[in-house]
């Protein structure tokens, strides 16, 4: 008994007191900032393994370079080869409810936010106090799963906010998908989603889930589910950092304001 207390005492204070302001140690590839330096744009665009970097007309509006964090694998190669053009900041707050907000444009330094105006009204009312999620792993590489598990360890301690993962979809308020969604998982995913009572939310965690990531061109995927349903939250990362995840959910539930 006494050694149990001793062990507990030796751990010291492990939990992160404020997950919304915590600093990540060392270097971290979070929200990128793109300068207006002129570089060999063709080579830069060609460098990206997932075609997340676009320029000019390809970027949608205006000219200049943009990075789509829904496609980016955060490998950092562009920042290594074009340090004057692209920098990854340690801002881990990357989640949003609108897909377009994941596209970072040249010169933009503003944070990525959840747009309160477009969040479904029932989300804060129904889930603001407690949110139970059913996670479905659909063809990923198990890295986002590791980080989602880590989000509930004693340091990140997500359950202090009333956010938990549950085993049964019947107990869940929503589904969180990791992985690019393989053909072999498409059926099970649909069944799981249908088993969750209304109203329910859908969260995509990780680059693979948001765009297919490096697997986007594979004939073994079936992403109909994504096209068919409204997505409530996009959480980029490869894998998602626990702080990115927790902050994303808190913003969606407007618990951090």
């Amino acid at each position: 008994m006494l050694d149990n207390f001793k062990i507990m005492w030796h751990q010291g204070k492990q939990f992160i007191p404020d997950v919304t302001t915590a600093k990540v140690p060392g270097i971290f590839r979070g929200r990128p900032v793109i300068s207006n330096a002129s570089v060999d744009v063709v080579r830069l665009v060609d460098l990206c393994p997932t075609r997340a970097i676009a320029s000019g007309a390809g970027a949608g509006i205006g000219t200049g370079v943009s990075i789509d964090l829904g496609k980016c694998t955060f490998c950092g190669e562009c920042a290594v080869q074009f340090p004057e053009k692209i920098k990854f900041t340690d801002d881990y707050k990357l989640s949003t409810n609108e897909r377009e907000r994941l596209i970072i444009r040249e010169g933009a330094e503003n944070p990525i936010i959840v747009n309160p105006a477009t969040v479904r009204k029932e989300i804060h009312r129904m889930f603001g106090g407690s949110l139970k999620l059913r996670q479905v792993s659909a063809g990923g590489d198990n890295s986002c799963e590791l980080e989602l598990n880590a989000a509930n360890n004693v340091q990140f301690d997500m359950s202090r906010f009333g956010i938990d993962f549950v085993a049964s979809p019947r107990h869940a308020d929503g589904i969180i998908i990791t992985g690019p969604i393989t053909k072999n998982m498409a059926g099970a995913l649909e069944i799981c989603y249908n088993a969750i009572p209304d109203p329910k939310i859908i969260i995509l965690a990780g680059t693979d889930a948001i765009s297919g990531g490096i697997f986007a061109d594979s004939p073994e995927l079936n992403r109909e589910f994504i096209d068919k349903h409204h997505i409530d939250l996009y959480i980029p990362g490869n894998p998602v950092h626990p702080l990115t995840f927790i902050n994303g959910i808190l913003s969606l539930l407007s618990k951090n304001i």
Partner: protein
Amino acid sequence: MRYTSIYNNQSISLNDIPELGYTEFLNVNCGLLSENPQRHCVNFFGYKTGEVVRLLCCIADDTTHQIYLSSSIIEPDSSLPSFTAQNHNFEKFEREIHENFGIKYSDHPWLKPYRKTENYTFLRSESEELNEVGVGPIHAGIIEPGHFRFICNGEQIMHLEIQLGYQHRGIEQLFLQKKKLLERTTLAENIAGDTTVGHTTAFVNLWESLCGYTPDISLDFSRTLALELERIAVHTGDMAAICGDIAYQLGNSVYGRLRTPIVNFLQEWGGNRLAKGLIRAGKINYPFTKELATRLSEVFQQFEPDFDEISEKLFKLPSALSRMEKTGIVSYEEVVEIGTVGMSARMSGLNRDIRTSHPFCLYGSVIEHNPVLKRHGDVYSRVQIRKEEIKQSITYIKKLLADVPDFKKPENILLTPAGGKFVLTLVEGWRGEICHCAITDNSGNLILYKIKDPSHHNWMALAQSVRNNEISDFPVCNKSFNLSYCGNDL
């Protein structure tokens, strides 16, 4: 010549691999394994050349440090006697060949689908006394999908059938489809997120060998260091999860939080907690500095006392020991027959460790590795191996830190793969032996990329281990193996 021999990470001309008639091919390879536990099959696969299929078999010999290669040309859809009928090591390989090329094996004991999940009928028992329990593909936790079908007598498991393939996303095909090195490296990083360093190291070692590039010591240093850090991180996380499965909350919390400083160190070094972006062919974007070496020593200074304290407690705790000892046993004879690798071999006294048998990077030179062996093959052995390997890895890392080599500024070197080559790379990841093979055509284009995660061999050991155990012990058995679904499904 009935087979040709290569060393780990050696590329040879494709034409140098002898082509045998199928019967001789079968006899040679089954003969090599017969009564020889120091030999096992590291890869066995087919690929289309023109209208026919060429089968290629790679047998590793732990005593000579060599890999024996032989091949045979067969017609697709032909019916052949199976290797598996003589040796169960080949069971999954032949199921995969059957699924990919329609080869019918006349005497394969169970030619069930390998990665196909549709309309599969599981083995059934006609008995009215027995009940079936089906679990998955979605499980009660944040884990990967797979289907487990138990046949039980009350609470007791009589048989477990594991059906995988839900994570199949076509990685091997994508390796051929995507031509750029960075695309392929990213693919390798996403084979299995818990073994990012292991699989990426296998890929870059293979690629450098194929391109005739010899990495300098700083690259080998980084890969060895990252492999050992990954081993510590995953083993620690596994010990947390095992404590969770036996309802030992203190162990779960303490081991769980001890994983964090290790993965956070990987982030300090390379910007990602799972070391994505760190290992690159011909360069490293994040040189390991003297400051990082000091930081890592500090991390261990804090890690070790807390790790030792909780481990001492766990290994003395009667309620924990009673859940781990004699639970999920796989005997030496069984692991030899199944052909397990890595931890799942060493738990039962079968000495398989690529770090000693087929050394790569700094193993065999700077690090003289001595595999941790246990005899009982139960959950307890697997937990003991983890604890001792964590301590061992820390010792190795301290040795590495004593002599940090100079790092060059990262620059892109033009790596061009040679034509008409076959190359095979083995890496000991934390889970066991990873094998990557590649074949190029005459102009140096990839025509085959073959990945084998250690889980491929080891899933059958999990199915064996739970027999006659209570079904409530399945989670702790499963976690003590911690096999990869995505690495198997590709």
